[in-house]
């Protein structure tokens, strides 16, 4: 992030220090090939990201499949060792923490996954699934542990008697509630929600969104909410970050992003999302992007979006646009932004 932009943001948030901050964060995965499995290239899933998440806010992270949004979520939780850059949590540099020190820090973080079918062990009872993080971190034992599990089930709107049942006895929405109860078991302050509703039926999605909002105000949680559905992200988030091929291209409060996107990618993403209103839909103009997302192994030079961008000029291939401030809380990385 250029110094000017960061200074402007700091001014906007003088009251709030970030709970989590990533600077220059890179997460590359090696691509091996040949008999000797030599590393021939890298998938640059996250390739230089600056992001700050304020205490108590929900930062939405949107982008298309393969843009690196899930990897970014996992890297800030230190599930991976970053290739470069730093991650600060509550002011402490956790980039190189290992072993017990990392485990202690991670007690304050939790994750909710997309697929409620794959993320719960089918051989464990619901009680044991929720109890596992309590055991790992030695938070409670015996009667106290049991009470805690009942309380967590209650909090996510499930009958405590379900503790003795197995995941297959539940629907997708109920399983997601179990996953949320497990995430809450460590009493985290920060939760990464990775596509928590995209595997659920439409009529169930709103139940889970409302539950997440209720829990946030009840337990003072900070969320990084990752999803590809911008309508959902805009609804639940205070600010929304848009990611394209390993880079954040725009960050702004949801309403502002919708009313006045500055990055052409955000603009076309917004125009591509159908609104469930036939009269509004008929009047909308779509910016239909040509082609597909580029490769994260060999991303385009300069601005990574230029290969699909309707506004691209020669300069865009030569230099990478930095994130710059467009108003108080609005950042975008584009040399020729939308008006």
């Amino acid at each position: 992030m250029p110094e000017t932009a960061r200074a402007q943001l700091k001014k906007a948030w003088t009251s709030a220090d970030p709970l989590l901050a990533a600077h220059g964060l890179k997460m590359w995965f090696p691509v091996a090939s040949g008999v000797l499995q030599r590393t021939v290239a890298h998938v640059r899933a996250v390739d230089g990201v600056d992001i700050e998440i304020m205490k108590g806010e929900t930062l939405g992270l949107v982008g298309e499949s393969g843009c690196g949004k899930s990897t970014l979520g996992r890297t800030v939780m230190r599930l991976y060792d970053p290739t470069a850059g730093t991650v600060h949590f509550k002011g402490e540099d956790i980039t190189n923490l290992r072993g017990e020190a990392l485990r202690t820090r991670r007690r304050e973080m939790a994750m909710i996954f997309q697929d409620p079918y794959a993320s719960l062990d089918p051989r464990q009872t619901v009680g044991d699934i929720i109890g596992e993080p309590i055991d790992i971190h030695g938070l409670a034992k015996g009667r106290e542990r049991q009470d805690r599990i009942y309380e967590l089930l209650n909090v996510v709107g499930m009958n405590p008697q379900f503790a003795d049942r197995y995941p297959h006895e539940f629907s997708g929405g109920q399983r997601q509630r179990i996953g949320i109860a497990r995430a809450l078991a460590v009493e985290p302050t920060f939760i990464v929600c990775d596509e928590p509703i995209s595997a659920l039926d439409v009529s169930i999605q709103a139940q889970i969104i409302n539950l997440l909002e209720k829990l946030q105000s009840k337990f003072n949680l900070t969320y990084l909410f990752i999803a590809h559905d911008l309508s959902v992200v805009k609804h639940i988030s205070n600010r929304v970050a848009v990611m394209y091929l390993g880079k954040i291209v725009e960050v702004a409060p949801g309403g502002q992003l919708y009313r006045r996107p500055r990055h052409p990618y955000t603009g076309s993403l917004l125009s591509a999302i159908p609104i469930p209103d036939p009269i509004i839909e008929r009047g909308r103009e779509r910016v239909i992007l040509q082609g597909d997302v580029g490769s994260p192994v060999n991303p385009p030079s300069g601005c990574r979006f230029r290969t699909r961008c309707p506004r691209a000029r020669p300069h865009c291939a030569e230099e990478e646009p930095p994130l710059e401030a467009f108003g108080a809380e609005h950042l975008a990385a584009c040399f020729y932004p939308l008006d």
Partner: protein
Amino acid sequence: MGHTLLEVQDLRTVFKTKEGDVKAVDGVSFHLDAGETLGIVGESGCGKSVTAMSIMRLQRPGRIVGGKVLFNGRDLTKASESEMREIRGQDIAMIFQDPMTSLNPVFRTGWQVGEPLRLHRGVDNVKALAGAVAMLGKVGIPSPAERAHDYPHQFSGGMRQRAMIAMGLTTTPKVLIADEPTTALDVTIQAQILDLLQTVNREFGTATILITHNLGVVAGMCERVMVMYAGRVVESGPTTDVFAHPKHPYTWSLLRSIPRLDAERHEPLRPIEGLPPSLTDLPRGCAFHPRCSFKVERCSRDTPELNRVGETQLAACWVTQSGTELKGA
């Protein structure tokens, strides 16, 4: 709008399971006019895909146990397998959600796209390939002559869906059934494919049945919409009317439960409580009544039929059929 091309009357499709017969499609009736786009919306398990598969007679292991599918006056449920093979691909084409699993990985894309021409038009390999290349170009595949030699895995998801659409269109069918054609795709690619389907509808006059769970997609694409729940049609009508004044509580609640991109203020969503019912254990009466905030005593006793409510809509609801307006806080 043209004449009626396809008319489905009281279609019933059943699957045998250990827990008893599942009525996946339970008395579905609708029609499709020449040149129009009809949306079928509903959640997983509501019977929207089985309805489409039954029209194509691809419902196996399910069995069609009742009703008619009239295409140009002919009942497809009575047609022989060889007659159906003529109709599939020639008169009615279908595209699926996942273009990777519906294209054969071991044949070159051009060969597959040209297959309907070889099978139904009896043209030779050279002409079939030429037809395939022309159609791949029309659906927006760049350098189609070269790409026709590629295998499906060399195509991206959006390109594969374009190839599927090209395959469906080579014989200029009258009806195209698209079953969740964009669900596996990213939004910017979804916009490309929906735009292509609209172009196809306009330029070839292909009547389209678009099956989706996405109400936004229906709003932008379809003149008429039909809403399904637990194997039955609960509401149908012109899309503008159904979205503006839904006449079934399921449609009404669903529209209010989804977050909208154009929402001005942050308001809590109003979810539909409870779960969609299991088809092996349907509630008595209206299948939606346990989740319905408008239910009356009769709803748990008798199953409502689809009847006219208001000027242009049909709804299967005792409440709205008795003249009550759906309103809420």
